[in-house]
């Protein structure tokens, strides 16, 4: 084991116990996934509307 790794291992000894909040992680993760899906769906819908508008414009020429 290298000297620096040994010092780092010692230095990274936690001052107190800590556990991630699983419920908060899942809640926030699901919220971001929903937000991302909504953003993708919105962009897809906007692209569809734009394509339709272009098609109408071309057809009416």
């Amino acid at each position, binding site marked *: 084991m290298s000297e620096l790794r040994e010092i780092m291992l010692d230095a990274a000894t936690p001052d*107190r116990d800590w556990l*991630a909040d699983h419920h908060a992680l899942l809640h926030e993760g699901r919220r971001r996934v929903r937000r991302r899906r909504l953003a993708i769906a919105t962009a897809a819908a906007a692209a569809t509307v734009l394509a339709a508008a272009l098609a109408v414009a071309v057809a009416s020429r």
Partner: protein
Amino acid sequence: MPVRDDARYVEFVAANQQRLRRIAYLMTGDWQVAAAATQEALVRVYVEWPRAVRAGALATCARQSLVAAVAELAPAGTAAPAWADEPDTDRQVVVRALARLPLEQRQCLVLRFYDSLALDDCAAVLGCETAEVRARTAEGLVALRRELSRQGFDDMPLFSQQLEGVR
């Protein structure tokens, strides 16, 4: 296509949270910031879960998320660790010296020496070339030695072996 399996995700969190928090601590010098960065990184892992599982890269995804979270929460490290008024021990001195290094050097030193990542893996986590990782690590070791010397800890082991190893 892999879906989000909450039970597997919770298992992953339980198995990795302490290691991620320690890495974040060495990068920030503050346990509270480290906990916040770990929590944020684990949320990002949840969002990226299907892609990361498909690529067989959950560990890399977690490290990338952690590095990004640390860069957002503590880009400059912490100037005054909680124990600043306590007598200096070797570990406090090293953490304080690390916190004063530029973020890129801190990331490389912690990932290479604490997390024992190979050059290639470290480059994949940081999104740069291996040559860049090698250069940042060497610069980081020199800067760390200079910082320790500046704080009057000339007698601390000066990592000559490591310096030779990254050149």
